[in-house]
């Protein structure tokens, strides 16, 4: 089948007799990229799959010993690892929910005649373009219990945000919401502006209430694009590292990426960390799969 397609392509092209054939050009253009990604993304993953079955420690010169599935068995039975996953799940839920509420709410407000709409939208988008590490750093200044502007503005006195184990994860999530609500807003706005006007007009003629109009017209039509935003943010929040790592060092904010980083580069349990990396990887790929399915569905519309 493939060959049929190729030959037909080749014969159709009048350029085939001059210069390179289309198939050659296609291969020349595509293969280097595929190779590059295989060498620098897939090969390392195969390499670490091998190490995940050993007790290798990169800090010593001792040769790695094969231990079979021991790393995986121990990790999956380790209540501390599950605690890290639970923290990650809590973080994902709090921060993605916050982003959807703030982002979608702002988009609803912006979806009307507003002076300087373009400028306001651009200004609102600024936070998500900034470096997460540097944002984390300057939010430390904002959260400072003694001279932070947040405590001053809210009249909280010397409330501890980051040093308080119960509050720290929420503080990280609030910063994440500040950064990424604009992303949800941007996508929602695109969805909202695509809702045909005549549907609202028809609803008005039928004297439909605002709730009915929202739940029966607006929400169903925006849902696919909002879903893209939610899945994408879920995936990113699940992988989160920079913000939490820079803002606090509380055990209550040790999301799975931070645990993985510490296991690999501070405790130097290389073999074990490769096994944990694989467990995380499988979860991320599962979410990616859902994401791409949705992306394609929206594209086809």
């Amino acid at each position: 089948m493939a060959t049929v397609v190729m030959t037909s392509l080749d014969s159709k092209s009048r350029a085939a007799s001059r210069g390179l054939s289309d198939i050659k050009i296609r291969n020349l253009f595509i293969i280097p990229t595929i190779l590059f990604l295989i060498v620098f993304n897939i090969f390392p993953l195969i390499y670490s799959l091998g190490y995940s079955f050993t007790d290798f420690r990169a800090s010593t010169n001792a040769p790695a010993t094969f231990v079979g599935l021991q790393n995986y068995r121990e990790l999956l039975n380790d209540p501390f690892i599950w605690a890290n996953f639970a923290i990650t799940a809590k973080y994902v839920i709090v921060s993605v929910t916050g982003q959807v509420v703030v982002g979608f709410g702002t988009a609803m407000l912006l979806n009307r005649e507003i002076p300087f709409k373009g400028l306001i939208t651009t200004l609102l988008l600024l936070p998500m373009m900034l470096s997460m590490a540097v944002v984390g750093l300057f939010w430390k200044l904002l959260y400072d219990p003694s001279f932070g502007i947040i405590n001053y503005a809210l009249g909280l006195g010397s409330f501890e945000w980051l040093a308080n184990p119960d509050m720290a994860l929420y503080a990280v999530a609030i910063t994440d919401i500040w950064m990424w609500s604009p992303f949800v807003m941007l996508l929602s706005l695109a969805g909202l502006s695509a809702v045909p006007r005549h549907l609202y007009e028809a609803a008005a003629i039928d004297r439909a209430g605002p709730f009915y109009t929202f739940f029966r017209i607006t929400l169903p039509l925006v849902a696919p694009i909002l879903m893209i935003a939610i899945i994408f943010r879920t995936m990113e929040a699940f992988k989160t590292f920079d913000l939490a790592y820079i803002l606090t060092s509380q055990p209550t904010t040790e999301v799975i990426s931070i645990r993985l980083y510490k296991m690999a580069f501070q405790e130097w349990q290389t073999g074990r960390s490769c096994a944990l990396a694989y467990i995380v990887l499988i979860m991320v790929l599962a979410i990616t799969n859902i994401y791409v399915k949705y992306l394609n569905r929206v594209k086809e519309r």
Partner: protein
Amino acid sequence: MAAVQTRSERALNRVAIAAVLIITLLFLAPIYWITSTAFKPRNLATTIPPTVIFEPEISPFVKLFTKRSQLRAAPEPDDYAAAPWWERLVFDGGEKVVRSGRGDVQLSGYPNRFMNSLIVAITSTVLAVSMGTFTAYGFSRFKMKGEADLLFFILSTRMLPPVVVAIPMFLMYRAVGLNDTHWGLIILYTAFNLSFSVWLMKGFIDEIPKEYEEAALVDGYTRLEAFFKIVLPEAATGIAATAVFCFITAWNEYAFALIMTNRRAQTAPPFIPSQVGSGLPDWTVIAAGTFLFLLPVAIFTFLLRNHLLRGMSFGAIRK
């Protein structure tokens, strides 16, 4: 009846505008605060209540770029007169401070890290965008078996968590001596941005009518000539937008830089937070470093504003 409705609608609109303004101000407040801190005298940076009105100073930036041990005492008049002009711009708590009238000025770690960030971000952007444009053209114009699977594979590499990839890459780089080098980071960032670049450029190239090239082929161009002379100029805007996105991603990246570099090739994101250290950090200097680092991104965001939606959705949503 109708008049009542429009009046209530107008009131609703006014409430919405007010709400949007408040939200915008809230969102910009953190950025305003870090920017204003970068120009504050040190003694006004951490006051309660916060200082909003002050006379801006340039000393945080001089301190940022030069190595110095903090001197509290007022300088000797001779030393002050002999000091270079920028040293005379440095104040501490409103008092004149000069390190010393003589001796070489040593650069701090910051300019070096800033340069590293530029080198790594620019090189990886050029590589990712050029490879990405070729590949996107390949996918856009030629049919292929398993095209959807290949595109999914390319996208999925972007979704890999950095720490997961960093563990084996660290070991491999250590084996070949690429740890703490520019090329080590450039390769990682190119790989990271490549998938993004392919997806985004494919969207842009799909929009260029095939008829343009076909006409050129009839006129005797080869496929390659048609690509370089017809398609590339048409795709220029898309290439620029993709490049800016790739640059910002590489510029902002933290986890790989933290793990793979420590001194020679270290970029600004892991360096700036490490300045906080222990004890009492000078927040004006940290704010100055942050401000300079965020400035290019802020400028690029304004240039990109019409393409943000497209970039953020990997080219899925066009506008």
